[in-house]
């Protein structure tokens, strides 16, 4: 079993991107990119929770804020590459697709995965984020204090 080649920063980025993707998006992009390879489950998709923490005062001691739902799975390709996925929500199909992409990113399919799955996803995420930021910017105000009368 081959695991984690040292491409940590990159891998962190693509796993994070897929974790936050809208429902069904990674599935659609993967299936449009190539026929799915065979694989075996190391860990079939399972739904669970993660306790999200915050910090008192934003910067102080951690406290437990509440949980969020997560789906995770791990699989291996016939050639031995291992793919992991942790995605937000209860989304077994998306977790499976994300783990496949993660595994394929360690194979000769790396360029296809980059151009057909990760880059479009990144662009969609950035566009959505910037639309929201622009709507927020349109509500920016400058309050000014009225000059009080001299009397």
């Amino acid at each position, binding site marked *: 079993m081959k695991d*984690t080649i040292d491409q940590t920063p990159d891998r962190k980025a693509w796993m994070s991107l897929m974790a936050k993707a809208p429902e069904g998006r990674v599935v659609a992009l993967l299936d449009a990119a190539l026929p799915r390879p065979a694989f075996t489950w190391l860990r079939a998709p399972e739904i669970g929770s993660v306790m999200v923490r915050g910090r008192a005062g934003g910067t102080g001691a951690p406290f437990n804020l509440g949980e969020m739902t997560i789906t995770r799975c791990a699989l291996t390709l016939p050639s031995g590459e291992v793919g992991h996925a942790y995605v937000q929500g209860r989304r077994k199909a998306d977790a499976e697709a994300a783990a496949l992409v993660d595994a394929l990113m360690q194979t000769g399919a790396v360029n296809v995965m980059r151009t057909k799955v990760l880059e479009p996803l990144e662009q969609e995420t950035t566009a959505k984020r910037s639309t929201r930021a622009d709507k927020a910017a349109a509500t920016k105000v*400058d309050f000014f204090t009225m000059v009080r009368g001299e009397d």
Partner: protein
Amino acid sequence: MYVAVKGGERAIQNAHAWLAEERRGDTSVAELSVPQIREQLSLAVNRVMAEGSLYDPDLAALAIKQARGDLIEAIFLIRAYRTTLPRFGASAPVDTGDMACDRRISATFKDLPGGQVLGPTFDYTHRLLDFKLAADGETPDAPMRNAEPGPVPHVTEFLNREGLIEEAPHDDTTPPDLTREPLEMPADRALRLQALTRADEGFTLSMAYSTQRGYARNHAFVGELRIGTVPVEMEIPELGFAIEIGEVTLTECETVNQFKGSKTEPPQFTRGYGLVFGQTERKAISMALVDRALRWEELGEDNVGAPAQDAEFVLYHADNIQATGFLEHIKLPHYVDFQSELELVRKLRREVEASQGQHQEAAE
């Protein structure tokens, strides 16, 4: 005392069937879908996630539908579901300084770097019913303006150059978890914040309001209120590094509170903190005020006996699921209890009547 009751199965089944029918309402009116609730009743969804203590908008929307809009019942459903989930771990503390803000205002500093951003707020609306909404009108697109990229620092960060505001020094203590260990007194601040962030909004609001009206008054200003999304990062043991596992919308409120100093602390502005899942600003502001009131002991303030200073009172009564569970159980069959109470009252009544009879005889 609880004694099993038998029977009533058919009546119970029929009651639940009728409940399902009443939930659906008039079938000539289109049925609500879960995505409609998630998208169009999002503040109800946010409240159910915050008090249900589980961030999942689809589940919260489903719970609201199932509960016929009874939010406490919906929160109950979410809490029950939550207990069925295996827990994969805990996240790194979220960095709210890195928030992609939809809204960010300060009531104390008008010229804050990054500006005052109103966001999608009810503030400054006239609170007049909008009959256009009843007429199925279309909404115009929200205007846009090019956003300047860059971080949006916390107000207290740049305000504190003079050192007049209490600091929240970095700390990495593992916090206690009231979902794993029963809430016990004394509760440290981490435990109090966990209890408050999932506390009933109405209760927290009333407690906060009581401090404004003078019961442990702590002169709160909203130093900063921000709403937006933050990534949630967790260390993945099988990978040996951390990844972002999702993104959550949070509301954060920092109050700065006038403080004349105490035996242990110099005069300064002290702080209260609120952080809540979703766009939930009434709750976040309330949480910050109550957090500040509960900090009297560590700040060396006097306990003036106000309800909001009493951690045991606040924390043991803030959870609406515990409260409603105990409150509503009294409507369930208590026939045996009541039979024995009835016997007791009859006996007391006989004794009183007998003794009155004797008094009368003596008087005659």
